[in-house]
């Protein structure tokens, strides 16, 4: 009799243990779900706080001028394109398209020039030995640490003597000659991380230094080069001080100056026009960034060498 009891007890205990385990597991799952929910809520809230000014900007650009200050929400009550239409016309004889074109004329040679010149300089520093290499590289780093403001006046005098004032040249020529030490440094560091085996293989295959650079190094450098171009594009698009110093005629204004123009010339600011044009101004940078994002992250060098 007692034996049977014992057996039944054992079963009961086992069942209890099993359901205990089940409960623990369920509890763990619930705890995980709760913690995930909290995590996403916090992340979402912080993200929203960060993005809100941008969202508000886009929303407000469709509002009427009066509504911008009356309505704190970002959804316009009576959406209108008037900000865009009137903002595009500007208060000058030129449309905003002209200013975009000016920006483009600066950005294009600057970005291409930066990519080519910085690659050459970085390749030289990373792969060749030449006299005074250490001192020269040291001075590149020194330039990196130098505040930009320090060189503004000497540069201005130099460009004035060259007769380059009120032209785009001072805005892109220095960069197109590897004047941006930051990009040189960035590419040198990237190159140092790439093993030299592939380049040696290319030399054995009969490539000279230029062919090695063009066919082997540049493709492996692509992710870094895309980053360089992206940074240069965004920084140039946003550059305000450079054009302000060197450009004096309105027909040569890039968008960064043109935006300021509409604030200057009207007594009562047409905020919706300014906001509408601001939205247009940031659009190219956003589009380019999202297009290049994939390459930004992708490392192409993986897989060629096993160590």
């Amino acid at each position: 009799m007692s034996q049977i009891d014992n057996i039944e007890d054992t079963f009961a205990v086992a069942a209890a243990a099993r359901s205990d385990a089940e409960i623990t597991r369920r509890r763990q799952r619930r705890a995980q779900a709760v913690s995930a929910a909290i995590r996403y809520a916090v992340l979402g809230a912080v993200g929203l706080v960060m993005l809100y000014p941008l969202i508000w900007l886009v929303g407000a650009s469709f509002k009427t001028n009066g509504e911008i200050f009356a309505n704190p929400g970002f959804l316009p009550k009576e959406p209108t394109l008037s900000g865009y239409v009137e903002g595009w016309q500007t208060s000058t004889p030129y449309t905003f398209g002209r200013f975009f074109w000016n920006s483009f004329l600066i950005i294009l040679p600057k970005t291409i020039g930066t990519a080519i010149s910085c690659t050459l300089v970085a390749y030289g520093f990373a792969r060749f030995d030449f006299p005074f290499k250490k001192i020269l590289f040291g001075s590149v780093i020194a330039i990196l640490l130098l505040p930009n403001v320090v060189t503004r006046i000497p540069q201005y005098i130099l460009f004035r003597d060259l007769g380059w004032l009120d032209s785009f040249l001072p805005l892109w020529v220095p960069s197109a000659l590897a004047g941006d030490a930051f990009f040189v440094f960035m590419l040198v560091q990237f190159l140092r991380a790439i093993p030299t085996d592939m380049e040696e293989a290319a030399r054995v295959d009969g490539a000279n230094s230029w062919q090695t650079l063009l066919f082997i190094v540049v493709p492996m450098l692509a992710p870094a080069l895309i980053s360089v171009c992206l940074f240069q594009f965004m920084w140039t698009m946003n550059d305000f001080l450079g054009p302000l110093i060197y450009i004096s005629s309105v027909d040569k204004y890039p968008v960064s100056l043109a935006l300021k123009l509409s604030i200057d010339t009207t007594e009562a600011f047409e905020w919706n026009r300014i906001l509408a044009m601001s939205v247009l101004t940031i659009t190219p940078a956003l589009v380019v960034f999202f297009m290049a994002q994939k390459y930004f992250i992708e490392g192409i060098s993986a897989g060629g060498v096993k160590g």
Partner: protein
Amino acid sequence: MAQLQLNQLEKTYGSGFKAVHGIDLDVQDGEFMVLVGPSGCAKSTTLRMIAGLEDVSGGEIRIGDRVVNDLVPGKRGIAMVFQNYALYPHMKVRSNLAFGLRLQRQSKEQIRAATDEVARILEIEPLLDRLPKQLSGGQAQRVALGRALIKKPEVFLFDEPLSNLDAKLRASMRVRITELHRRLKAEGMSSTVVYVTHDQTEAMTMGDRICVMKEGRIMQVAAPKELYNRPANLFVAGFIGSPEMNLIGGRIENGAFRTEGQSVPLMEPLLRRLKSRPEAAVLGIRPQHLKLVAPESEGLDARLNSVEFMGHEVYLHADLDGAPVTVVATAAEYEALGRATGPIRIAPEAEWIHVFDRDSGENISLA
């Protein structure tokens, strides 16, 4: 004809460190020469100087009848296979193979024909449209081999090409490369090879001749069998052969080799061959040439410490008057012994005894 000659080749680095000390080496046309040595023996540096990837500090390198010291790698008539394969990561296999020919401005048809031919020989046709990152180690190595082969160079240079492969693949690639070499030679194509490795199995199985290096100097250049049976010095004796040759210190007295407590009689032909009678000598005998003998017969007393069972044979690790010795016994001999520790008696086979001068390291017992 693609003979390779190194004359008094030297390499000194900027820091003043001398890596290669004036080495002389002749590699015959069609010969498979293996450079082998422990790490830091400058075998790779020597190969890279032949390739033109390192500057030559002194001496000359001749390929065929040209001195190539000052030629860029691409003009030397060489092709190289790297340890890390060094495939161009952004190019498909086909373009990797064709890169050298494209630089030579060969026509599209020529390049295509050459690529297909090489792909067929190396059985990499299905891989032609893949990127290097989609290849396994063995496949990548074959592509690297193909990239060398396609150029029809005068001299092939291999820099530890198999050391990144697993043991099984390494063994099969070894055979494949040897076969490929034989085939090129049979077809009358240029097939001089300089092959760098630190693996003595690769050296012994692949090389027509082997050049053993140590600290930037050549220790011995000889065919594998010669190197194994007649090592010129203590370094080669210890480096070639597995398990290692037993080296026992002692002196030569009254026609016998004496250790602290025991002696080995030296036979007449050997005694007559001895070039000198150094104060301190080293007796060298391969583990295969040490025999377990009965306790009462002539031989040396040693103390057995441990045993490694290898299948068809057994390695007995023993202690002979303080010197570690290894004996290779057959499984049957070991069975007969019946234990894994304790005293044993061993006898060297007289004709396989080497005697070295301890100070110079030279083998003084060679005919």
